[in-house]
C-alpha cells in the first residue's frame, strides 16, 4: 500500500514534468504543423546549463532556471529564423530531415564540448533531500520540480487563453492564412511558438537535471516521450498534453517498477497504439 501510494505520487510528479516538456512540442505542432525532432535536445541544453552553473560556477542549480528558460527561448528563435523558416516551404521529407539535422547537430555539439561522460548534479539546496509527508517519504527535488512545472504550465496556459498575444497565436494555429488577413504577423507568431517551446522545455531540462543523469544523448528519449504525450493528448491540444503527461508519467513509473528494463518500451508501444487506433488522441477533436 505504502509503495503503491509512493509510486502513484512519483508517477504524477514525473507526469507534471513531462507535461511541461510536451507543451512546447504541442504548441509548435499546433501553430505550424511541423514536428520538431530537436525538442529533446533543447531539454538537454537546459540540463547542461544547470550542470555548468552548479559544477563550474559553484552556484545553486536553482539559479539556472531563468537562465535556461532564456537560453531556450533564444535557441528556439534562432532555430526558427535560421532553419525552420527555410524548410517550411519544402516538402515534408525536407522538414523531417531539417529538424533531424538540428537534433544531431545539437547532440554532437554537446558530445564535443562535454564528452560522452555521464554527469549529474551533486550539490544544491534541493538535491538529494527527502520530504516526509505523513507516512510517505518523497524526493524533495522531484516535488519542487513538479511544482515549478505546474506553475509554468499554468502561466503559458494563461498567456495562450487569456491574453491578446495568445489569441493571435491561437488564430494562427487554426488558420494561418486567415490570421494573416486579420493583420496578424504570422511569421512572428511562428517564431514566438518556437521561442515559448524552447523556453519551457529548457526550463524543464534544468529542473530534470536535479534528479536525472545528464548525457549528450539524453534528448532522444525525451523527444519520444514528448511525442507519445502529444499523440495521446491530441496533436496541438494544450489541455490534452497536460492530462496525457500525467498518464504517461504514471505508465512509466508503474511499468518501470514491474519490468525496469522495458519501462520506455511501454511508452513507445502506447504511442504506437494511440496513433494507430485513435490518431486524434484521447482529448483531440
Amino acid at each position, binding site marked *: 500500500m505504502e509503495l503503491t501510494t509512493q509510486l502513484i505520487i512519483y508517477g504524477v510528479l514525473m507526469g507534471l514534468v513531462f507535461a511541461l516538456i510536451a507543451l512546447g512540442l504541442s504548441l509548435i505542432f499546433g501553430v505550424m504543423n511541423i*514536428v520538431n525532432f530537436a525538442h529533446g535536445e533543447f531539454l538537454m541544453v537546459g540540463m547542461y546549463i544547470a550542470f555548468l552553473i552548479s559544477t563550474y560556477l559553484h552556484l545553486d542549480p536553482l539559479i539556472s532556471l531563468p537562465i535556461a528558460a532564456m537560453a531556450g527561448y533564444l535557441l528556439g528563435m534562432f532555430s526558427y529564423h535560421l*532553419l525552420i523558416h527555410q524548410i517550411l516551404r*519544402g516538402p515534408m521529407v525536407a522538414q523531417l530531415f531539417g529538424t533531424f539535422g538540428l537534433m544531431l547537430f545539437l547532440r554532437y555539439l554537446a558530445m*564535443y564540448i562535454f564528452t560522452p561522460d555521464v554527469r549529474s548534479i551533486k550539490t544544491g539546496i534541493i538535491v538529494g533531500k527527502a520530504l516526509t509527508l505523513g507516512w510517505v517519504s518523497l524526493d524533495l527535488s522531484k516535488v519542487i520540480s513538479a511544482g515549478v512545472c505546474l506553475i509554468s504550465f499554468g502561466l503559458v496556459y494563461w498567456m495562450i487563453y487569456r491574453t491578446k498575444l495568445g489569441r493571435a497565436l491561437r488564430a494562427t494555429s487554426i488558420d494561418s492564412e486567415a490570421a494573416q488577413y486579420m493583420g496578424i504577423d504570422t511569421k512572428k507568431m511562428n517564431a514566438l511558438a518556437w521561442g515559448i517551446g524552447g523556453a519551457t522545455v529548457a526550463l524543464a531540462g534544468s529542473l530534470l537535471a536535479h534528479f536525472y543523469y545528464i548525457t549528450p544523448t539524453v534528448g532522444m528519449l525525451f523527444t519520444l516521450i514528448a511525442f507519445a504525450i502529444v499523440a495521446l493528448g491530441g496533436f496541438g491540444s494544450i489541455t490534452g498534453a497536460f492530462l496525457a503527461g500525467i498518464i504517461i508519467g504514471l505508465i512509466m513509473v508503474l511499468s518501470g517498477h514491474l519490468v525496469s528494463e522495458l519501462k520506455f518500451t511501454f511508452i513507445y508501444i502506447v*504511442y504506437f497504439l494511440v496513433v494507430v487506433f485513435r490518431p486524434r488522441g484521447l482529448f483531440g477533436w
Partner: protein
Amino acid sequence: MRQLLIDIFSFEDRPRFERIGFLIFIIIVLLFPWIVKSAYGRAVMIKFLLFALFGLGWNLIGGYGGQVDLGQAKNVGFGAYATGLMMLWWGVPFWITVPIGMVIAAAESFGVAYPMFRLKGHYFAIATLCVALVWKELFVFWDWTGGARGVEIPIRPTPNFTYMQFGSPVHYHYFIFFLFLIQLLFMNWFRKSKLGYECQAVRDNEDVAASIGINVYRTKVIAYTITGGLGAMGGSFMTVYYLYIDPDFVMPLDLSILIAMTVMVGGAGSMWGPIIGAALLIPLDMYLGAWLGAQKRLGIDFMIYAAIMMVIAAREPKGVWGIIERMRRKRIG
C-alpha cells in the same frame, strides 16, 4: 519471360551519359582490389557498397514511395540475427539463411505496415521510429538473442562458400558487389514495373492516384514489405563480414538515419541517388571519423553530417542528383 529479362537487365531508357557512368562505375569496382592494396581502403569500399545496397532498398519506400521510414535498421537487424542465430544454433548454410531473414523481415514489415499506413507524413515517420526502437529494446532484453552481449559467429578453420567465410577482404568485396548488383537489377525492374509507377503516383499525389484506380493503401503496404526484405539482405552480409553482431551494432537508430540520409543526399527517388549518396557520405564518415577520432575530437564528424542534412533540407531537397539533372537540363536548353 523474355520481357521480364529485358526489364531487369536493360538500361536502354536512361540517357547515354548515365549508362557510360554506370559502366565506368562497374569497371572501377571490379578492378578496385587490384588498384588499392591497403586494408583500410578496401574496408571503406566494402562499407560503401553495403550502404549503397541499403540505400537502394530504402529508396523504394522513401524515394519512389515518398514515405519517410526511419526504422530501416530493424530490418537490417532481422537479417543479421536470422543469419547469425541459425548459423550458431544449427550451422545452417549462409545462402539458406538469407532468404529466411528476408522473409522474416518482410513478414514483420507487412504486419506493422497494416495498421501503420493509416498514418501519414510525420506521424508515420515517428511510428516507424518507435517500432524500430521497440524491437531493439526487445533484442537487448531477450535472452535467446544473446541480449546486449550479442552473437559471435564461430570461425571456421578453412575458407568456404557454405558459411561465406574467407581469409581476405577481396572475397568479401566481390561478394557484397554481387549482392549489390542483385538489388540494383531488382530496382531497375521495379522502377519500370506497374508497382513502381503506382508508388510514384502515390508519392506525387495520393488523391489523384486513388482517382485513377490505384489502391493507395495496398501500394504502400506492398512497398513497405518489399523494403523490409531488401534491408535484411545487407544485414545477413554484416553478420558474415563482421562475425559479431549486437543490437547496438545492427539495429541502432543512427543506422536508420544514415541509410535514409545517404538516399536524401544522393537524391531520393532516382536510380543512382543512393549510390551517389553512399559514395559521398561513407568515405567522409570513415576517413573523417578515423582522423578526428585519432585527435580525440568526438562528434565533429556527426556535426558535419548534421550540417549537410540541414543545408540539403533547406536548399536542395532533391539532393545531388537534383543538381546534376538541373545542370543537364540547362545545357540541353
